């Protein structure tokens, strides 16, 4: 009978909405609750620092700047008297950045990386340009595998000879065990 079928279908609809009423909501309350981003997800671009010294890994080779298709990266790294580049300025304009990840691929020194962070909205467009220090701060807690360590040790003595008189090595040593504990 048509009427019987109609009533059955109406009740079926009510049953389905009733079932959904009891289920837990799939949305999350954004500022209070947040997604846990996957470890290797690609959000904002950050600059990585050396795990031991805390210095920037960046050597100022400008590869990322050349690789950037939208010219969002501006680096000012003039050669110093030691004929090495010293990074003075490293700005990324997130207003232009297209998050393609080419800078990350171009980098040979584990210096630039896309981190699993995504909150960088501002009230002012000018604030979207992040300078070196901000990028470094955002990259502090990003865990990474340091692939460049194998190559670095050879020139290391040459670097260490020059600032040997300074007290830097003494400061570094007590920090290292702490960081390792944290990483474990």
């Amino acid at each position: 009978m048509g009427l019987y079928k109609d009533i059955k279908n109406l009740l079926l609809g009510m049953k389905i909405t009733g079932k959904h009423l009891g289920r837990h909501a799939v949305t999350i309350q954004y500022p209070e609750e947040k997604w846990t981003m996957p470890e290797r997800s690609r959000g904002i671009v950050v600059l990585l620092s050396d795990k031991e010294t805390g210095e920037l890994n960046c050597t100022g080779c400008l590869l990322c700047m050349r690789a950037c298709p939208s010219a969002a990266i501006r680096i000012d790294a003039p050669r110093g008297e030691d004929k090495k580049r010293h990074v003075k300025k490293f700005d990324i304009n997130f207003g232009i950045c297209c998050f393609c990840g080419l800078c990350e691929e171009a980098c040979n020194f584990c210096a630039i990386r896309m981190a699993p962070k995504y909150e960088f909205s501002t009230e002012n467009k000018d604030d979207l340009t992040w300078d070196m220090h901000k990028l470094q701060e955002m990259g502090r807690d990003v865990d990474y595998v340091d692939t460049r360590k194998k190559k670095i040790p050879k020139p290391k003595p040459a670097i260490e000879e020059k600032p040997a008189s300074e007290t830097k090595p003494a400061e570094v040593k007590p920090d290292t065990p702490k960081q390792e504990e944290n990483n474990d």
Partner: protein
Amino acid sequence: MPLVLMSLELIEIFRWAYGLLAELGLPPVWVMLISYGVIGVLMFGVLALLALFLVWWERKVAGHVQQRFGPMRNGWHGWYQTIADAIKLLQKEDVDIIARDKFVFFWAPVLCFVAAFLAYICIPFGKDLIVADLNIGILYIMAVTTFTVIALLMAGWGSNNKYALFGGMRSAAQAISYEVPMVASILTVIIYAGSLSMVDIVQSQNSFFGWFICRMPFGPIAFVTYIIAATAEANRAPFDIPEAEQELVAGFNIEYSGMKFAMFFLAEFINLFTVSAIAVTLFLGGWEGPWLPSWLWFLLKTLGIVFLLMMFRWTYPRLRVDQLMEFAWKFLVPVTFANLILAATMKYLGWYW
């Protein structure tokens, strides 16, 4: 514990307050005027708050059916969201369009609002808790709630907008069509109650099996047809063609803004509560119930029916105009009249219990 709860009758508070007022030694006319004034203001406040609560509840139900949360920001689960909305609407600019019919445009929301409130004069909220027990109670309610149709038609005409006019005309056509099965299903109750007074109707169903919904076989049929017709009367989905957001933008209230819109909106939710309250009074035994105070029973039952109507809204798709009319005239009217004849025959032959 049940005895303590039973004694929490709201009517006692009113009797005590009236006693205090009578002792002041004012002329009787003043006593009457003051008491009716207080009751009027009280009803207005309670119903406005109730409408705000229903708006919030509707949004919560809608959210949870769609596995969202609904309003969550203001207070616990957004409980004062609608209060904030109402205050916002009060402050908003009253946009006055140039090409409108001024008189009709202005008075339509007022009439809609007043018509929604008028029905509460003879709805029994609890034992003795009724403003005026008119001996034509249900007839009065049916007559007064029909004013809403005129108000919506006025809004549609006054706005000088084709969508608004469509909404108003559809509203009139729908409400008049569904009034017929609605009254026919109410008549089945009236035959057995033997009275049009709301209090008498409640008192004639004094036990659970005396509720009109439990009177086989005509009771459940009358209840279901009443609920369907009431959904259409309250202009709610699946019968919300007068405002049909997708086709008529917002129908009759398209040109209204600020407080005028808020009046339409509140009136809509008060109408929702009205039809639920009538359903409870006529079919579900009104305030009757054990253990709890009578007003609480009434409120619980009514909110249950309101919840049912809300679930209808978020379950069923909207009907087309021709389907709507076909359903009213070709299905509901014959069914309710057959049911009415059945009930009348059983009453005449003395087969009922």
